[in-house]
């Protein structure tokens, strides 16, 4: 008789840990390949188009980057707030307001030339996101109002603010009455250098370094970590909750606003209605990215790229393989679940016993 037992692991090496993650990811891909076989597709064809092409075709890689960069930048901001024990889901709204601020800058200072114009647009976006996050921050810090609710509400208010502008004062006279703003001036449009979105990629990488420094090296990051893992001890050491709440939300807001400004200047170039807005719901995807990265700034790099690749893969499934939306959801589900399932194998081990 065989007996399989699931036992808790009390010690694990980093090497084993990382190989469990890699193995889980590959298992996810293999399970998805199996599902494709059942679906009736040629798994070799599917796998090469989904996982090989993005690495060999530059045009395909670009699509991944276009989503990975904003997701990653926002996830970095969330990493900080989540470490402090504050569960903001407001990146979406902060991103939208970041785009509004960047757009305003572009319309108001249309005479400024690049690169100054780009820099001020990005900074304005960061400022916008920061201000938008400040209200939930103050409510949390002073009155301990649940930030999950306030940040979610502020997302909707941000959508409404965008709607107000595109249906009202910012509605372009040349859009035949459609709810659109004017395209931002050319001097504010970020163009790729030789086909490579250099500014976007370097902003992302700089953000990783910056967030790493904030969390791991700075006094504030120290306070945040102390607060997040033991609020009582942090309080008795005199760390101010108001400061932690306010700054965490402000910084994550600034990162989200920066992402919004970046998407406006490099991808969308104007504001429009919610369904085709600058945010595209990426503010919510960033939450997944932050947790997938285990709240470690370095790991946001691969997690954001993975999520960007999944969005890209979803488009490939529909546009290239001609498979329905459902298959996209299966792919996302299978691969993300496999990675999350790795935690189980990190915490537990299987023992097979043979008994007479």
């Amino acid at each position, binding site marked *: 008789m065989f007996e399989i037992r699931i036992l808790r692991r009390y010690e694990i090496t980093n090497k084993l840990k990382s190989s469990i993650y890699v193995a889980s990811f590959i298992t996810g891909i293999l399970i998805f390949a199996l599902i494709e076989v059942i679906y009736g597709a040629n798994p070799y064809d599917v796998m090469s188009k989904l996982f090989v092409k993005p690495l060999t075709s530059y045009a395909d890689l670009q699509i991944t980057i276009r989503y990975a960069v904003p997701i990653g930048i926002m996830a970095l901001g969330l990493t900080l707030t989540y470490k402090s024990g504050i569960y903001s889901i407001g990146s979406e709204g902060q991103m939208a307001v970041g785009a509004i601020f960047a757009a305003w800058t572009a319309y108001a200072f249309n005479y400024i030339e690049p690169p100054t114009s780009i820099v001020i647009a990005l900074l304005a976006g960061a400022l916008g996101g920061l201000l938008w996050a400040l209200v939930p921050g103050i409510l949390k810090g002073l009155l301990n109002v649940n930030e999950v609710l306030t940040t979610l509400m502020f997302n909707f208010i941000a959508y409404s603010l965008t709607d107000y502008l595109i249906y009202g004062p910012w509605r372009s006279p040349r859009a035949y009455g459609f709810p659109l703003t004017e395209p931002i001036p050319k001097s504010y449009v970020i163009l790729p250098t030789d086909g490579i979105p250099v500014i976007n990629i370097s902003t992302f990488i700089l953000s990783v370094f910056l967030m790493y420094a904030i969390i791991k090296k700075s*006094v504030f990051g120290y306070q945040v970590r102390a607060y997040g893992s*033991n609020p009582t001890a942090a309080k*008795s050491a*005199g760390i101010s909750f108001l400061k932690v709440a306010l700054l965490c939300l402000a910084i994550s807001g600034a990162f989200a606003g920066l992402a919004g400004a970046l998407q406006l200047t490099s991808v969308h170039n104007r504001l429009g209605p919610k369904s085709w807005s600058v945010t595209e719901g990426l503010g919510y995807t960033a939450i997944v990215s932050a947790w997938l990265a285990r709240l470690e700034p370095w790991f946001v790099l691969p997690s954001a790229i993975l999520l960007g690749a999944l969005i890209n893969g979803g488009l490939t499934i529909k546009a290239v393989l001609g498979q329905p939306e459902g298959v996209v959801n299966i792919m996302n589900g299978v691969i993300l679940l496999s990675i999350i399932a790795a935690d189980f194998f990190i915490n537990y081990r299987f023992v097979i016993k043979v008994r007479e």
Partner: protein
Amino acid sequence: MGVNQTTFFMKPHGDENNYILSVTGVSKFFGSITALRGVDLNIRVGEIHALLGENGAGKTTLVNILYGLYRPDAGSIKVFGNEVRINSPKDAISYGIVLVQQHPMLIDKMTVSENLSIGLRSLGYLKSPNSVKEVIKEYSIRYGISVDPDITVSNLSFSERQEVELVRALMLNAQLLMLDEPTTMLTSYERKKLFSVLRKLKDEGKSVLLITHKVMEATEISDWITVLRKGEVTASRPTNKYTLDELVKLVVSDAGVFNGVRSVKFDYNVVKSQSPEVLSIKDLIVVNDVGGVAVRGFSLAVKSGEIIGIAGVSGNGQKELSEAIAGLRKVVDGRIVICGQDLTNKGPKDRVKAGLAYIPEERLKYGVVGDMSVAENYILKSYGQYSGFGLINMRKVIEDVNESIESFNIITRGPLEKVKALSGGNIQKLIVARELRSNPKVILAHNPTLGLDLRSAALVRELFLKAKADGAGILLISEDLDEVITLSDKIAVMYKGSITYEINKNEASRDVLERAMLGLLNV
């Protein structure tokens, strides 16, 4: 699943001197650190066996191996002479080996019987809350355990929770009960009660492995003592074959340093009457978490160079008092003045600035951030000193931490190890090192040596005396009467939220204080 333990114990074979558990040559390494090396341990049926050693000697590692939480790198474990592999607590339980957890995992909002019912069910022992009640009633008669099965766990004291855990172990048919530092949080009365239960268990033929760092405790209750030092067994023989001095030397690795608490040579110069008051508390009223008045009209002054001890049975407002002084609990009425500054309504930060050091009672909750490293915890109150341009100079921190690790003899794998991996005594040493390094003017210490081994406790006390000599005023809230008597210049007894009795050091005796603590004496 599993072996039916009853039948298992009915037919012991390969009996070697009737050992219920026999450990031979067990070693365990964590990277380059040796936790255990070649440890032998033999426990007989119907024996109370003490495993004695300092913090960090490897006692807890050994227990974790016996309970299937760690796997040994070498050596064998036999139960009644049969070699076994213990891969999980479930395995251990199936062999009749049960660990009575130091911090029982109980669901606060459920009753005792519901908790036990759930806990047993998850292990495959189906018991309804009603049948649990029956069992508890039976045990209360048999062993003198007095838990009310219908009471909600949140209303239980620490010792009552421990009793619940003991009941759970017995319901699992434990033949060998392992207790890891069970008396750490107990008052002397509660400790006596626990020991009487253990003796009754022994009379019924069950075995007990008592893990402790307290020499006196080991000699008081055990039949056999095995001494563990730095991961190795230094002696193992019947209790009556040791002398006290010999035991102390066996336990403490560097016996020369240790001279006993009372012999520390310091000036007990009487506090000069003109010494400034560093802490003054006037008519303080504080409420507890459920809104009851915990501190009522408490007044006290601590002068520079003075130690004032507050004795009392726990639960008489000491916790709320210390939290109020530290700035963690709102004051309803009254004043708290530190070094001349009225800080009644200020936060902890201002109090730290004014020169207050706080050594809290629940060190894991208030004292340290378990998920952060030793170094990061070391600077919890002084990170400002290590920062420049908003960044923390980790190199300098580590230099200082290493110094403290050495001078305070903190046993750790290094400054980057997470604090939660340290033993309780070493965490306390770290907190004391942190709190005292900035030469505070006022030290508020609540049960500062609780759970510390002899040498660490002596070190902490020595440091208090040194701080006193340097002019600090110390408010020592402690349930350890000997400690209060030894260290304090003046002793106040706290009963039901206020000071009911005061006595000078020279006049204090244990007997008088114990009566005062029970509210039998008034000023």
